[in-house]
């Protein structure tokens, strides 16, 4: 276990360990000479004493040296705990990056304290032992840095309280690095308190490269210390309303129950609240995830409504409720950015088939991309050179917040990249031959089998032209030569799908609708989930930002909320006239933990340390000077006992 010292300079005193040895050597040189007659007995005694007595004397000397060493160590105020490691005591500034995501509300082993509070308490005690260096807090909800006057204030601040927002760790660490660059922080350490939830850490996030570079190049040699709260619960149950759809006089809720115990057999009691009326039932299921549909009667109530689905409090109270709101069905709006021509016509038709849900498709050229209503867009179809600059940022933000986008290749060459991928040169099949879909994912993605088990006839697709893709992605369907036809990139809460051919008779028969229609419609449904019309949002998302003149007020009766923290809490809210149910991100219910190898890869080359005992101990570091003083006493007492002369009566020469 690494040890560090608050007074490292006093460790020079360890040289004093040699004092007993020096005294011993000097004493040996200061002997008195005597003439002796009974030499034979002396020689015999020396021979017999050589082994055990010499050992005893060595032990005595060692004990004396150890006693001095223990005293010096005690004076140097040692701290133990894997957290600091060697030399970690001289810290001018500590930047605390606090994960406030719902998964951090999991109770620790004591059953009374959440991981978040346990981490805060550990940090408080550790800072106190480090003589209270300057403290800067970057919380996962606001992602902004603020100086904290005293560690004691950490538990009182709204900026450290529980939220239902996502924690995007790479972004938070980047903020910390930026803070170090912009401020004179001296020797700085970044303390990252997190439960290592994989979705929060986003190992695929492109910002990790910048984080690595920032940590390595930091002029202050910033050290990243990770306070891991990664213990997994065995009895946690979470509930989520996936969608709330009004159909005639009923509200159809798609509900998902997730349990951490794969062998759970007992039923989960659920409470449904709809416009203040409550009902309950118990749901039994097998496995760790169970999705079902629940229809609640609306009666004659018209217009908007809201409610929640809740389960009893368990080891993580933050994932025991999911809110929903609904209103009149709003038609989906798809924005088609295209180069025009035949693909544009077919795509527009696939987006808004006549007579289906009154869905709309707005066709724009690439120059008109700034006309996209990012908030209300259900799906973005991008059949043009990949976006760059401002448009790319907007599109990225849209995807991060749960949007859906379908990318199709441009006719001409394109040298821009987006989300780390770029179109390759046009490829044409050999004369008289086609590119044929041979393998596609039938359980996931837009080409998955239907609920009735019928497969999408993707094998009918034939192409003579295509553009392959460079970059990292997940392949959902591939041509017979293993080149991708359909790929997916998950960006935050959103999804981007890339198809490598066009619905153009010069390219392929994609326009035959066997493939194009289900892909586009499923993408619309995917994009629609972002809203569950316009009534749901992720807590802390851009939908929850107040527009001019709006006032936020919570209207559900599940619980109260702190006004200072309201922007980051789940609930049903009124934003002026807007009704919005906010919930924790779906990724928070994926209890996958970042693996150590993943972390090593992410932070390769940086100075980082992982403290995995957090939550089990009160402090990340402990002072052990008392233990050392006790050890010194033990050493001295043992030494004294060993030095005691044997009783003279024991062996006395009888005359």
């Amino acid at each position, binding site marked *: 276990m690494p040890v560090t010292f608050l007074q490292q300079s006093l460790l020079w005193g360890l040289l004093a360990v040699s004092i007993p040895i020096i005294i011993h050597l000097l004493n040996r040189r200061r002997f*008195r*000479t005597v003439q002796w*007659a009974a030499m034979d007995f*002396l020689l015999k*005694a020396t021979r017999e*004493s050589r082994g055990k007595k010499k050992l005893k004397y060595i032990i005595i000397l060692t004990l004396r040296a150890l006693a001095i060493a223990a005293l010096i160590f005690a004076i140097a105020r040692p701290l133990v705990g894997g957290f600091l490691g060697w030399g970690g005591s001289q810290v001018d500034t500590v930047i605390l990056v606090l994960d406030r995501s719902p998964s951090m509300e999991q109770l620790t082993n004591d059953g009374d304290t959440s991981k978040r509070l346990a981490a805060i308490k550990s940090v408080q005690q550790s800072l106190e032992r480090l003589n209270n260096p300057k403290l800067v807090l970057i919380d996962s909800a606001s992602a902004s840095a603020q100086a904290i006057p005293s560690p004691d204030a950490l538990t009182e601040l709204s900026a450290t309280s529980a939220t239902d927002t996502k924690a995007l760790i790479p972004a938070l660490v980047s903020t910390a690095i930026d803070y170090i660059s912009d401020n004179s922080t001296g020797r700085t350490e970044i303390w990252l308190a997190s439960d290592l939830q994989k979705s929060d850490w986003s190992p695929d996030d492109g910002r990790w490269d910048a984080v690595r570079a920032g940590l390595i190049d930091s002029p202050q040699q910033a050290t990243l210390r990770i306070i891991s709260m990664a213990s997994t619960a065995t009895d946690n149950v979470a509930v989520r309303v996936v969608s709330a759809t009004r159909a005639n006089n009923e509200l159809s809720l798609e509900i998902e129950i997730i349990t951490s115990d794969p062998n759970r057999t007992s039923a989960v009691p659920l409470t449904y609240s709809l416009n203040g009326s409550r009902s309950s039932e118990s749901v039994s299921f097998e496995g760790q995830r169970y999705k079902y549909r629940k229809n609640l009667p609306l009666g004659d109530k018209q217009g908007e409504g809201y409610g929640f689905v809740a389960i009893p409090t368990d080891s993580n109270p933050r994932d025991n409720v999911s809110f929903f709101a609904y209103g009149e069905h709003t038609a989906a709006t798809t924005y088609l950015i295209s180069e025009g021509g035949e693909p544009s016509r077919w795509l527009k038709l696939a987006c808004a088939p006549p007579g289906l849900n009154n869905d709309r498709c707005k066709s724009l050229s690439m120059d008109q991309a700034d006309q996209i209503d990012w908030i209300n867009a259900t799906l973005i179809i991008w059949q043009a050179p990949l976006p760059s600059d401002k448009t790319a940022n907007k599109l990225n933000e849209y995807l991060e917040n749960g949007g859906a986008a379908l990318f199709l290749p441009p006719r001409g060459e394109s040298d821009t990249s987006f989300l780390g991928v770029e179109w390759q040169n046009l490829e044409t099949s050999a004369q008289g031959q086609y590119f044929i879909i041979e393998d596609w994912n039938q359980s996931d993605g837009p080409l998955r089998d239907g609920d009735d088990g019928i497969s999408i006839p993707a094998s009918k697709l034939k192409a003579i032209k295509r553009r392959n893709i460079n970059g990292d992605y997940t392949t959902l369907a591939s041509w017979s030569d293993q080149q991708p036809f359909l790929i997916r990139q998950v960006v935050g809460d959103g999804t981007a799908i890339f198809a490598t051919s066009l619905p153009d008779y010069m390219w392929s028969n994609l326009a035959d609708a066997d493939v194009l229609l289900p892909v586009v419609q499923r993408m619309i449904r995917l994009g629609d989930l972002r809203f569950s019309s316009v009534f749901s949002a992720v807590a802390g998302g851009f939908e929850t930002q107040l527009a001019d003149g709006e006032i936020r007020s919570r209207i559900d009766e599940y619980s109260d909320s702190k006004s200072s923290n309201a922007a980051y809490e789940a609930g049903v809210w009124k934003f002026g006239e807007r009704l919005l149910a906010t919930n924790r991100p779906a990724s928070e219910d994926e209890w996958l933990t970042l693996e150590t190898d993943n972390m090593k890869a992410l932070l390769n080359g940086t100075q980082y340390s992982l403290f995995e005992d957090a939550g089990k101990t009160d402090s990340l570091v402990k002072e052990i000077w008392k233990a050392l003083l006790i050890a010194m006493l033990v050493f001295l007492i043992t030494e004294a006992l060993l030095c005691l002369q044997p009783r003279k009566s024991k062996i006395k020469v009888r005359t």
Partner: protein
Amino acid sequence: MKYDFLDSEALARLGAMPLEARQAMTGNVAGRHRSPHRGSSVEFAEYRKYVQGDDTRRLDWKAYARSDRYYIKEFEADTNLRAYFVLDASASMGFSADDDSRIQFARKLAATLSYLIIDQGDAAGLSICQEKIHLEIPPTRKPAQLNNIFDVLAKTEPSGETGLIEALHTIAEKTNQRALIIIMSDLFCDTKDLADALQHLRYRKHDIAIFHMLDQQELKFDFERPHRFIDMEDQTSLVAEPILIAEDYRKAMQDFLSGVKSACHDVHADYHLITTDQDYEKIIHDFLSTRLPKKGRK
């Protein structure tokens, strides 16, 4: 007085006490000690039948009158005592912590005892043994013998290794007549060899008295600081922490003393373990007292 190891007052005090032999002696003149032979003392010994050639003057006519048989009446013979002082003069006898050295103490004992012996008409001799017998004064009864003994004692200085064992064997061989062998030594030699030498003396029917002379410091071994111990006999040295080895040293010393006592007990030697801080007059007094015959005997 000429010799500093003689104390006239102590001699006067001790003069009243005789030195008795514990067994019959074979002297060459009449004396105060029992002889294994029949003689003309007043002490009746036994009757025996008359055999031809016996002096008729020794016939017991009263017994003849009673029994009508010829009996010769025999009496004990009294003779003088021959005492040999065997003084170990090896270098180790020069050891002294605070009091007299062993050799000084031995001089006092030997000088006083030889004075008492010659004063009571017995013969005294002296053997000084170092690596081999260095000097030997045969026992005589003459008063002038005292001067010889005192001179040798005064001149004797401890040196070299001990030759006690060889000296005892030599004395056992050379001394034909029974004698009192008084050994004064630290007995720092092999215990088994010592036992053999004593057995040799005993075999030659000598009465053995041993003054085993040690120093209190040799017994207690209570040094505190590290010491360099230099062997007085061969000058080899040893640096030791007395604290560490004291226990084993005392145990070795105890074993040595037990071995010596056992060897002395086997030959019925008159063993006296003495330390140089004791009063030599008391030691001699005790020595003489313990040798006095038991009540009922002369």
